[in-house]
């Protein structure tokens, strides 16, 4: 399904989604759908100097550069309560599972790198074993993407990791800015349903629209970007560089914070803790929170030994995971080239530079 949406009409579509009783959702059952009445629409909003996905403003303006945080939190929130527990003295513990509420999110303005991020997150959380909590949320999230006519920043490099500024991977709908209007293309059935909900706000594309779309996409792809020099060689080069002293050198300025991974659209490591709320009777929640391979206790053993104690080994883990281990498991790089980890790093650690240098060094 391909349509044209006048820029002034986007709010009408959003309103239709918000009000429209929704009957479809990725993998949702009819019984659940009946209790759900609308999509909650989120879109990038500039607040506190950063772009972030927010809902409820009613007005969607897709004039953003990419959000500081990727949309991964919609399906993989930073905190997820698995179940609550309670144990009265002398009795067996009582567990109550806490499944996420079935709120449907339509996320607007998702950039292609983050759509690719969703593809990778889905692989991790549902390819081999389906993670109940992730899939429960994911089935209620729809991504309405927006192609990048221009790179979002100086650190974009989607093209060199197999992506594209106009990729529809991971999207339910992909929109392309054609000046005064959007070219809107459904990618999935959910996407079709979303567009169907908008119904009359759309018009049919003309041949000129299609031609402009092609041209826009072609120009977008032609925009200069930063580059990983030889992506295909990266897994082998990284593998060969496991013991390279270069890692420590490249990580010399690293401060060990969690910015690069918490802002990454594909980092998915987590920790599970019990948060006690009462000592008698014992009460609390078992909670999953994001974890971070850059933190000092990540991989800390009970014995006190930490196989990845140095910042260099942690940088190696992050980069090798993105470009080697993930590739070995899923046949693609995990990195989608959004450039956040470069832009937001306070000390200039640059994953493009790191991969290239290591590859170069490996000869």
């Amino acid at each position, binding site marked *: 399904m391909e349509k044209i949406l006048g820029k002034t009409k986007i709010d009408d579509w959003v309103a239709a989604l918000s009000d429209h009783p929704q009957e479809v959702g990725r993998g949702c059952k009819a019984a659940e759908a009946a209790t759900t009445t609308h999509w909650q629409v989120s879109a990038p909003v500039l607040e506190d100097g950063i772009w972030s996905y927010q809902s409820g403003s009613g007005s969607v303006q897709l004039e953003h550069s990419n959000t500081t945080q990727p949309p991964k939190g919609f399906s993989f929130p930073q905190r997820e309560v698995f179940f609550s527990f309670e144990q*009265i*003295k002398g009795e067996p513990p009582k567990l109550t599972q806490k499944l996420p509420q079935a709120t449907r999110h339509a996320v607007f303005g998702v950039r292609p790198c983050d759509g690719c991020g969703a593809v990778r997150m889905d692989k991790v959380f549902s390819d081999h074993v389906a993670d109940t909590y992730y899939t429960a949320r994911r089935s209620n999230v729809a991504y309405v993407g927006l192609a990048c006519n221009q790179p979002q920043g100086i650190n974009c490099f989607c093209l060199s990791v197999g992506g594209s500024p106009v990729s529809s991977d991971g999207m339910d709908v992909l929109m392309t800015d054609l000046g005064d209007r959007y070219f809107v293309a459904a990618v999935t059935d959910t996407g079709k349903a979303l567009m169907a909900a908008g119904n009359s706000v759309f018009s049919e594309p003309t041949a000129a629209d299609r031609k402009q779309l092609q041209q826009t996409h072609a120009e977008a792809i032609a925009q200069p970007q930063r580059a990983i020099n030889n992506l295909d060689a990266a897994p082998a080069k990284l593998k060969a560089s496991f013991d390279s002293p270069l890692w420590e050198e490249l990580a010399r300025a690293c401060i060990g914070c969690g910015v690069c991974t918490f802002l990454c659209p594909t980092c998915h490591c987590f920790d599970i803790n019990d948060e006690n709320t*009462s*000592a*008698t*009777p*014992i009460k609390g929640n078992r909670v999953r929170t994001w974890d971070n391979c850059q933190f000092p206790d990540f991989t800390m053993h009970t014995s006190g030994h930490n196989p990845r104690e140095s910042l260099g080994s942690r940088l190696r883990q992050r980069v090798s995971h993105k470009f080697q281990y993930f590739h070995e498991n899923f046949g693609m790089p995990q990195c989608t080239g959004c450039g956040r980890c470069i832009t937001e790093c306070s000390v200039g650690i640059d994953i493009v530079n790191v991969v290239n240098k290591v590859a170069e060094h490996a000869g």
Partner: protein
Amino acid sequence: MTKKRTGVFVCHCGNNIAATVDVTKVKDAMANEEGVVFSQDYVYMCSDPGQNSVIDAIKDNNLDNVVISCCSPNLHEKTFRDNAKMAGLNSFTCEIANIREQCAWVHKDKDEATAKAIKISRSAVRRAGRDQALEPIAVPVTRKALVIGGGIAGIQAALDIANAGVEVILVEKLATIGGHMLQLSETFPTLDCSQCILSPKMVEVSRHPKIKLMTYSEVQEVSGSVGNFKVKILKKPTYVDPELCKICDDCASVCPVVVPNEHDLGLTARRAIHIPFAQAIPASYTLDESACLGLNPVRCGKCKDACDVGAINYDMQPQTITEEVGAIVVATGFDLYAQEHMNEMGGGKVEDVLDGLQFERLCSASGATKGHVLRPSDRTVPKEVVFIQCVGSRDPAQHCAYCSKICCMYTAKHARLYKHHVPDGRAYVFYIDIRSGGKGYEEFVQRAMEDDGTIYLRGRVSKLYRKNGKVRVLGTDTLTGQNVEIDADMVVLALAMEPSKGTGEIAKTLKIGRDKDGFLAESHPKLKPVESVTAGIFLAGCAQAPKDIPETVAQAGAAASKVIGLLSQPTLSHAPTVARVRNSHCSGCEMCVTACPYNAIHLEHGKAVVNEVLCEGCGSCSATCLRAAIEVKNATALQIHEMIEACLA
């Protein structure tokens, strides 16, 4: 790690607790607490059967720690800790939940009081669950004492300690012992001669085999703690060898330098080389370096030439002597509040206005006028003398807030002494109240009024100034409401007593506290009146607060008995609830070292180390440490954290 087994015992305290707290509910609630394996209530936990039930329950239930929900820990903590010990537990694993003073007695609503008692008890259960078994720290004792100050308080304390067979070092700043008491003419209420009763004690000090007397010396540095102090004493050079000095006065008679004599408060003069007074102990001359022309035969050298026995040695050097002692008595005495502070009393600039001690020297047979009361300006017999009480005392707005306690009595004594010297003179006393509590004191004041005809005027003096060769005193008699104007020949001010100069420094050196007025602080105003806040350091005499001679002697004796008691033990036991360092967390920033009020922490190899003997367990270090690297045993952050949770659950 196996789980700790806690027992809870809830006391009814007859009806004291049970009337407002549903003790059964508290007991049941505690039974439901994690870790509690035994919970019972009893009508009087502290009774014999109650205590036995605690002991039995500990044994029968294999308890690791116990909580007694009862009265304030000040009352029965020791009782129950002893019980725990008898039952084979470590006494520090017993905690008290105060549900009487802090709960049952202050609330009426039974539900509310019960709910709060549960929180208090639960909080104690959490604390007890994390209590470590601790053993009191045994510290060996040095059987030697230091007495600082050679006035009557120090002399008495030194003699009492020495007579118990304990070695004493008596340190006096001046060249002789004796203190202010030696300056007094007679003492109230018996009017016996001060010197006559004090000199024998001074001689006894000098001859006592257990007393090492160090005059002209000052305590410079004190480290260590109760049982084992290390003291550095600076012995200033007197430039005269006391062993050789024959006190012949040949040196003084040739000395060209004349300076005011401190012993007579400037009413007489002395030479640079001098003996403070004839009966001085040690009986030796002292060369006052600050007055001497230069300790140099080229500059002067007359005294050295005059001394037949060669007792004078200009090359004598200051010496620092290190001593180890187990206990310290501080008896550094008082000074009079300076006349200069008292502008309304002429600020020390009006002639023939004397302070109390100067008047004592006027009356004293060994004083400036050989015991004749003559006014300093023209050496005539004063016919009208005004005595003013409370000068500087009881004046929180401008001077000292406190009552100097002895001025009522010594003013009465002064008035009487004056009348005995000048029977036809007139003595006026300005007073606010007469405080004459003490054996024979009230009668003494009455005699001053009735037998000796002293005129007591109730009121303050507003101003005095010199007029026509007399001192005009303007005041008010508040009983008649009339202004009073007296042209006095002489005025004697009963100035406030203040801690002697140098009390601040000595308090710092010893790390003992001072009160708001600068007197040395006792550990407890009622129950520990001779103990300083630092263990092993005791207080005697006016350094602690204004007091008269009998009280001083009594306090000195009390301090001495505390010292003797302390030093009679082979080892001392110190509370083990002291700070502990977690080496892995310590960065050696020294913030705890700075914060510690006891200098109990130092750095070794970049890590804080606690001297457990010095540590009092206040926890200032733990609240200051940013890294949770130091905490007080059995008052740990984890325990407080869980107690907070227990209070809010």
